[in-house]
């Protein structure tokens, strides 16, 4: 059940919010915890025991961590990263287990493991360094299983979510003002949620269909203009898919009283690759900064150490996305670009500005193609088509891009428009104004319509 699923929007979410805000304060965190478990169980029942195990073990170790015992803290980190690494490794080598009764068990990455493991590591570290106090079991459970973040992040910190003044957790206020307070959280979160829903369903999901058309044709058989159009389509698709999702997640967080968690900040307005990755998937970038790069010394220990630290961060970033060659190549290219910017380009301001924009607008979109291609043959074919080389045994229709454009301009153009920071600024300032309210209303129903309007509705996006 995804956030854009009508079952979630029209059933699960309202039901949850009602129970959550009706429940007595003391039980509210439990409601959140249980909702998280339930949400996880609906989406990935087989992985639920592992999640619960992780919470229990982290809770058991947390008393040692909070009293500054290094060994226990190390155990916690090793345990958390260990389960992540084991599952990544099992998946990387396509591990299958055949039981005596012929059932085949195929290794699959437990849902959201990359996200909740990182959240737990950050919790243990913050605890060890004394930035936060030890959480009660229900708090740790609610933080880890938080349904707004369990599937694909954002990787929020404990101090940003559960420990924050926005949450209504005591009964000191009058009932009517508490009700209003809850309602205003919901209304506030709703605006983000709808904006995200629209970006995800109306823009990203449609762009994704266009992108799949390139695969349907076969990367070897696309024309060169279509290959370049594909670069634009996939880059936009990835951005709005993830940004839209993150906005929905953050909006849901606001509805339950968390602080808004910002995961994207106009990445394509960046001036360099390093700047881009300060604006893209911010919670992941900050996690690596705070728990890897800075503890290793950051850039304060001389050039060679900086290179090594950056190498480590990007190697881990690549592995975090997946243990396949394409992710390592992708991370490698980015590392080279960042080093080239940091140590060479930065010496000349004009060159830095020129190259910085070329990197953001040309090279980064090309790196997404590397990111997208799981097979090396596909990657090779795609780049051959980009520079106009013909792949053997292919049939190319030179005007294929026209069909994709006529089918897709109405998603590509709004996508490009939404790259402009001004749109977001206007939204942030005026989202309760009459114009945005009407827009959001339309965006909501358009998205719902798009999600369930296609032929034969269980498989909404299917039309062949």
């Amino acid at each position, binding site marked *: 059940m995804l956030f854009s699923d009508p079952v979630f929007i029209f059933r699960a979410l309202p039901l949850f919010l009602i129970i959550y805000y009706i429940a007595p304060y003391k039980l509210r965190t439990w409601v959140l915890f249980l909702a998280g478990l339930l949400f996880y169980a609906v989406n990935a029942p087989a992985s639920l025991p592992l999640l619960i195990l992780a919470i229990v073990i982290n809770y058991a170790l947390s008393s040692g961590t909070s009293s500054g015992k290094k060994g226990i803290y190390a155990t916690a980190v090793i345990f958390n990263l260990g389960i992540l690494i084991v599952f990544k490794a099992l998946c990387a080598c396509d591990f299958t287990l055949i039981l005596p009764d012929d059932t085949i068990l195929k290794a699959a990455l437990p849902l959201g493991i990359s996200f909740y493991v990182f959240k737990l590591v950050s919790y243990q570290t913050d605890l060890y360094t004394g930035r936060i106090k030890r959480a009660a079991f229900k708090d740790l459970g609610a933080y880890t299983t938080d349904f707004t973040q369990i599937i694909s992040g954002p990787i929020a910190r404990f101090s940003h979510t559960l420990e924050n003044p926005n949450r209504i957790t005591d009964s000191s206020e009058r009932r009517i003002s508490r009700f209003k307070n809850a309602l205003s959280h919901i209304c506030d979160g709703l605006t983000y949620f709808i904006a995200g829903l629209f970006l995800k369903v109306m823009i990203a999901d449609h762009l994704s269909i266009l992108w799949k058309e390139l695969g*349907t*044709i*076969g990367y*070897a058989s696309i024309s060169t203009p279509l290959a370049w159009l594909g670069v634009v389509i996939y880059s936009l698709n990835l951005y709005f898919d993830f940004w839209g999702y993150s906005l929905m997640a953050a909006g849901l967080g606001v509805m339950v009283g968390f602080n808004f968690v910002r995961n994207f900040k106009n990445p394509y307005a960046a001036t360099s690759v390093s700047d881009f990755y300060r604006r893209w998937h911010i919670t992941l970038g900050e996690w690596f900064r705070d728990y890897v790069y800075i503890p290793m010394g950051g850039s304060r220990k001389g050039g060679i150490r900086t290179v090594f630290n950056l190498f480590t961060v990007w190697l881990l970033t690549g592995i975090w996305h997946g243990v396949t060659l394409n992710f390592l190549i992708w991370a490698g290219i980015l590392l080279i670009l960042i080093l080239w910017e940091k140590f060479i380009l930065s010496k000349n301001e004009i060159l830095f500005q020129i190259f910085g924009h070329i990197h953001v607008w040309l090279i980064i979109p090309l790196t997404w193609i590397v990111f997208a291609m799981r097979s090396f043959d596909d990657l090779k074919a795609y780049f051959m088509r980009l520079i106009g080389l013909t792949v053997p045994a292919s049939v190319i229709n030179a005007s294929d891009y026209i*069909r994709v454009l006529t089918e897709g301009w109405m998603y590509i153009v709004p996508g490009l428009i939404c790259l402009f920071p001004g749109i977001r600024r206007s939204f942030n300032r005026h989202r309760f104004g009459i114009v945005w*309210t009407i827009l959001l209303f339309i965006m909501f129903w358009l998205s719902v319509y798009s999600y369930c309007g296609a*032929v034969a*509705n269980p498989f909404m996006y299917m039309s*062949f």
Partner: protein
Amino acid sequence: MAEHRKNRKKRNKRRHYALLISLVISTLFITVWSYFQLPRAYASYVYDPVETPVLALAMQGIHDGVYPWSGSYASETADTGVPAATGEAEMIVNAEDDTITDTTIDIPETEDDQKTDIVNPEAETAAYEDDETTSGTESETSEDPVAEETTVIETGTNDDSRLIFHGPVDDDYFNDALFIGDSRMVGLSEYCEPLDTRADFYVKKALTIYNLLDGKAIRSFDGTQKSLWEVLDEKQYGKIYIMVGINEIGVGNAEYFRDAYEQVVDKIREAQPDAFIFINSIMHVSQSKSDADSLYNNPNINARNNAIASLADNRHIFYLNINEAVDDENGALRSDITFDDIHLKGSCYEPWHEYLLAHGVK
């Protein structure tokens, strides 16, 4: 001043709630509307109350242009009393039982006998093998009013003068051909140059048999918006090839689909009395897709293919099981010639082309 600020704050608060309130009201309205229309305009939709909120039906209805006042198929289905969802469910079960033999003919229900199983036991014996070119099995489907004309499904060469498939032919055979179809046909037009340069293609992604029947205007090969019937009025064709059916698998059951198909074929016959009509089987999906999908799977496709195969009279109307050209040994689309499990890759339309070349009729 303070008063002013207070008022503004109050107004802002009210604005704050405007979106939530309008969404709640519109949701309630659409939900009530959908419930009301559930047995009426939306009767033909596959609807599972557990899987989808009822308001999804209204969305689907708007998408399909099904309104209470438009009186399209939905109401017709309601008349025959086949609740589409149940029909579909039975179909899936029955089809799955027959995955190996793949030969069941679905006997359409008669009006006064709605509760009989879709697969009639007699049909098992009257099954025909549409995969084998040597057999000339008879399929007696006496309960089917149309079947009386089409009792012999002739796919073999062991018959005499009424030899049916003359093939092979060369590409110029398609000079007076019209191709009608969904995205699979779109692919054929784009990646099979010999056909594209010779024949006319009236094709569109997501085209359904119901669109054709309705006379929905789509962008025709001359660049203008036309219904099929306008196209057929303008020019006489020698051959007409059709492939639709995958998109509408969620609408109605196989019999319902066949009825619409039959009406389309009849109307084409009327408009083009001299043309040979080739019903292309709905192309299979790959095994992995078929296994994972409760709707777009090969048993469902086979059920519909069996239904439309019976429309062939082998004089004017022919059934081409093009799946022979693209299937693997399990009767699913070969995984090496598709990327998305549904369509052929751009470089893989040749087997279909060759199959058409091998099955010309003169």
